[in-house]
């Protein structure tokens, strides 16, 4: 057997053939190679497990001391030893919801435009590229741009406008500020739009063309075709894409830290400053000591748990489409 393969190899290329003939070494090397590969894979599991153990262990004293009031308490005053994380959980949820309300229609528009409309090649390339570029920009650059450009140019005027005309609704109560749940939500929307739209594009690409043509053959307008064929075919894929975007929005730190206004309260008005879980970790960590650090780690554990659940649900929904 070894001589046969040796002959074939020698026929093809004498040099390689001879080198590969050293079966003794390769026999022994094979299990070693498998071991190396398997260990690298197992390392991922170990790191993830240690991640949960190490952070939860550090945060445990806070969890046991505060109990459920850690999640429901509204008061956060490290100097007094009071750690209620509700303002941060609330802020994370509110900013993410605002982000999705803005980002989902925009992402669907971009994805539909690129997949369902006869966009000329010269336009399709640059648009795809530009939207993907948004996904590559680091979040600290969004933060810098948001604070010094978007805030005076759009966020503050928009907050004033919403308060002036819709101020009678509690969620738009004043005094309006651009550094608020609203401001953080807008910057998050800009950041998650490319993620949701590229996922949606993949999902829309799996809609069979015959279904589209059937709809047109029945005399459907383009919009009717989109509504009846594209949307109904990819409903769970769209939900999955939105949830992946949500997962990203929940964990986003720096841009939110710069734009949310850093006020640890639960405020019904989205136009007033608040705080989010990731932002409080980034902002307070450098000055924190002792129990304060443990409390910040505890917030991180809660954030981790929430994003993991959201992400696993999203993966389960998109899975069908990404493997096609």
């Amino acid at each position, binding site marked *: 057997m*070894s001589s046969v393969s040796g002959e*074939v*190899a020698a026929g093809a290329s004498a040099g*390689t053939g001879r080198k*590969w003939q050293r079966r003794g070494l*390769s026999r022994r*090397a*094979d299990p070693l*190679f*498998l071991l190396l*590969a*398997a*260990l*690298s*894979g197992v*390392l*991922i*599991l170990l*790191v*993830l497990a*240690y*991640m949960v153990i190490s*952070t939860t262990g550090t945060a445990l004293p806070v969890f046991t001391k505060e109990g459920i009031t850690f999640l429901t308490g509204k008061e956060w005053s490290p100097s007094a030893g009071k750690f209620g994380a509700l303002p941060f959980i609330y802020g994370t949820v509110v900013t993410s919801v605002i982000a999705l309300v803005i980002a989902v229609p*925009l*992402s669907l*528009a*971009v994805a*539909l*435009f690129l997949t369902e409309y006869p966009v000329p090649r010269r336009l399709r390339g640059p*648009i795809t590229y530009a*939207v993907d570029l948004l996904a590559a*920009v*680091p*979040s*600290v*650059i969004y933060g*810098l*741009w948001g604070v010094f450009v978007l805030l005076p140019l759009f966020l503050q005027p928009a907050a004033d406008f919403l308060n002036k005309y819709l101020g009678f609704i509690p969620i738009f109560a004043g005094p309006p500020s651009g550094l608020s749940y609203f401001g953080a939500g807008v910057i998050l929307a*800009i950041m998650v*739009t490319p993620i949701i739209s590229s996922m949606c594009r993949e999902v829309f690409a799996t809609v069979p063309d015959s279904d589209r043509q059937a709809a047109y053959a*029945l005399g459907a*307008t383009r*919009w009717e075709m989109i509504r*009846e064929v594209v949307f109904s075919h990819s409903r769970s894929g769209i939900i999955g894409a939105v949830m992946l975007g949500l997962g990203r929005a*929940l*964990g986003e*730190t720096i841009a939110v830290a*710069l734009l949310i206004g850093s006020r640890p309260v639960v405020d019904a008005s989205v136009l007033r400053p608040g705080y989010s879980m*990731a932002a409080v*970790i*980034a902002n307070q960590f*450098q000055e924190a000591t002792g129990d304060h650090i443990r409390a910040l780690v505890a917030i*991180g554990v809660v*954030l*981790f748990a929430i*994003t*993991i659940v*959201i*992400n696993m649900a999203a*993966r389960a929904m998109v899975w069908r489409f990404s493997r096609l």
Partner: protein
Amino acid sequence: MNEARAEAQLQNWAGGRLQPGVSLRQCRPTRRRVWRDRRNTALIILGVVITLIPVVMILYQITSKGIRTMDWEFLTSSMPLSFRREGGGFLNALVGTLIMVGLATAVSVPLGIMAAVYLVEYGKGNWLARLIRFFSDVMTGVPSVFVGLFVYTALVVNFGFGALMGAASLAIIMMPIIVRSTEEMLKLVPGELKDASYGLGAAKWQTVTKVVLPSAAPGIVTGVMLAVARAAGETAPLILTALGSYQLTARLWDQPISALTLAIFDGARNPFAAGQARAWAGALELLLIVLIFTIVARVMASRSRFKR
């Protein structure tokens, strides 16, 4: 099943008019339907335009504001000790970013590629492989600030802030990205190629290292470069592990180190014009690095021999 559903939907939508003998004219869209179609097309185009506005604005403003402070001095000197003072630059931050991203790449690339090899070459219908695949997906969704907290509780508490701790957090962020992208690329290598290699008498490890990996190389490099771009742009985990510093240092431990993202974050938070101007120039520097990696990755991907 699917076809039947679609047909039922379409019949329903056609409003029962879809019968033999009905003239096409009767099926022509009513004015209301045409109007709705045009309105929604307009809304979709409006949505695309709104999405593109921030791209144009960010690129334009980072460039125009950054270029004012970007000069030789900015690139080759470190930060002054006060934000108020003009001059100086982000050399210390650039060095910090290069050291930490470099170390993280050196660790995560071999490990990530080996893990992907395990998944593709040894992991057919294997519960361990399924577990690894699932949890590396989970890991790509872990908030980066949480990775920072983990490295803080596991390493920084014992060894102090430093470049090694920052690199560890970046490596943890990069690894699942590399595993997943490499896995996709390895799956595309044709079985005939491997069969030919086995036919020549090569062992499995020889086939993988001399046939499979080289032929998937362009695609693997694409994934690695995207991971590098991602790591270079991370801020949150570095706050908790590298801490930041004003000094130029190349020490790997026992001493906090800066990074471009950390320096920009500091600049964005402080009220002095000189500090903010440096932040804009730093943003331009960082954006160029990230975009170069992203664009080169795209070019490599388009040259890849095997396509999905």
